[in-house]
């Protein structure tokens, strides 16, 4: 078939490519470059000073801690939820899928607010928490809860379609051959979902470390105590300490770049594995 059938004239092609590149350049490349340019505006010494400052370090620690709790919990939940939805039939399954997606549809501000309504002074469980000596808002546990809420769908969402399309036949075969539940999961289910799982974890982690709206509402902005990196960026920026704000922001931008690279690598590996499967009839 002639290429004229599926291709546009060269002029149109170039115009479209130029438009797309200009749009992406203006909206993605320029902001990315400017984060690092602003961070290094006063040189490397000032840049490193902003990162070594105690408040920045404690914010970094808290961000890592939050992610270290939220990601594994939502990983376990994601696998369990996807398993339940893909391998069993029960009433209300569609409603369950919609509920899992809910945190994506809710404003982060509201996600944070519900925890204040729940555990704050005038909250539903506030008096109970206080009586038990639990401080759940304006505190680290509050930050973790809010992060848990907003990062809840990532893993489940990646796994549900994967597990659904894989079906249950292979697991049933393994069961007939005498494998235990855990063996089935580790040797049959896990290999088929591993890339999706990794993909979900990467996205979940990026959001857990970068969440701002929900965390900002529950944190109470106590410096050195309930400040994560994004909140620290906000405080520095509002104090007109732009260089330091961008220095800390550059860490988060770097995290975003690492996320993109990891994500692309996973996509690439998963695609390579799929073609290998398709080409080699012995595999499977």
């Amino acid at each position, binding site marked *: *078939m002639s290429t004229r*059938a599926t291709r*546009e*004239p060269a002029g149109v092609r170039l115009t*479209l*490519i130029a*438009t797309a*590149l200009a*749009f*992406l350049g203006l*909206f*993605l490349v*320029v*902001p*990315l470059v*400017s984060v690092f340019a*602003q961070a290094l505006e006063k040189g490397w010494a000032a840049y490193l000073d902003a990162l070594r400052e105690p408040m920045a370090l404690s914010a970094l620690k808290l961000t890592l801690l939050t992610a270290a709790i939220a990601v594994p919990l939502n990983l376990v939940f994601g696998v369990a*939820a996807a398993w339940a939805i893909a391998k069993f039939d*029960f009433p209300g399954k569609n409603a369950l899928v919609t*509920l*899992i997606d809910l945190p994506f*549809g*809710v*404003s*982060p*501000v*509201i996600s944070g*607010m*519900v*925890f*204040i*309504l*729940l555990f*704050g002074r005038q*909250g539903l469980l506030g008096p109970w928490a206080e009586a038990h000596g639990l401080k759940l808002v304006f505190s680290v546990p509050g930050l973790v*809860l809010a992060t*848990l*809420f907003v990062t809840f769908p990532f893993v489940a969402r990646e796994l549900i379609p994967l597990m659904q399309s894989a079906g249950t036949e292979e697991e049933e075969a393994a069961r007939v051959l005498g494998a235990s539940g855990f063996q089935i999961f580790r040797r049959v289910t896990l290999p088929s979902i591993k890339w999706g799982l990794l993909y979900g974890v990467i996205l979940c982690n990026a959001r857990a*470390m*970068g969440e*701002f*709206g929900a965390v*900002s509402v529950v944190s109470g902005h106590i410096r050195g105590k309930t400040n994560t*990196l*994004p*909140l620290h*960026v*906000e405080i520095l*920026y509002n104090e007109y300490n*732009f260089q330091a704000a*961008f220095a800390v*922001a550059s860490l*988060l*931008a770097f*995290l*975003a770049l690492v*996320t*993109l690279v990891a*994500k*692309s690598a996973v996509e690439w590996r998963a695609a390579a594995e799929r073609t290998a499967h398709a080409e080699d009839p012995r595999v499977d």
Partner: protein
Amino acid sequence: MGFTLLYLALVILFPLSTLFWKSAALGPSGFWQAVSAPRVVASYKLTFGASLVAAAINGVFGLIVTWVLVRYRFPGRRLMDALVDFPFALPTAVAGITLTTLYAPNGWLGAPLERLGIKVAFTPLGITLALTFIGLPFVVRTLQPVLEGLDPEVEEAAFSLGASRLQTIARVVMPALVPAWITGIALAFARALGEYGSVVFIAGNMPMKTEITPLLIVTKLEQYDYAGATAIAAVTLLASFVMLLSINRLQAWSARLGSAE
């Protein structure tokens, strides 16, 4: 199974239900007063309008970007493809301060625009810009798999039957893309409605003028006006539910169209 439901109930349902419990405490007339005050209505209009314009911009450019990424080969294509997800990966607060600094009157892009008499930062234009940034991946990522899955034979058939390239695109390609395209635009719009981090810095946050609804909720919370904040949040939540439901419908439509081929 049981674990899934328990976890879901504890982490999602229980917290969300307090929203309704709290706003019910206001009573119908108190609720209505809280959600229809002029300052609140101004914030709805701004949030809705800016989100709509941003989603429309993403609709147009997202279509072009997807087309170029899927159909053409040029140096830097894979890099651009990976970079499309940058707004998803970048923490919103970082996006917020970066865009504000860029478009501030003394910023890299703000200064030349200022000379042309265009103010971006601290105006509704700035808000729209930030919402365009965070909505960018939605249209591209929803359209991309559909366009990739489109069989070129159909286009070849149209061509051999005498259709011009433009006719082929308008009558053959676009109808197949429309459901995914609208879904992408709706997703970008829904995200923009609730967006906070990337907008608060560039918005200027002047009541009645550049105050978005999520910020108004935060302001009320900081003033310990929990009931007022909850009432506005309930309205926002309702809007999100409607969007979520419409998007589910759109996706079902999209899937039906795909299987009908």
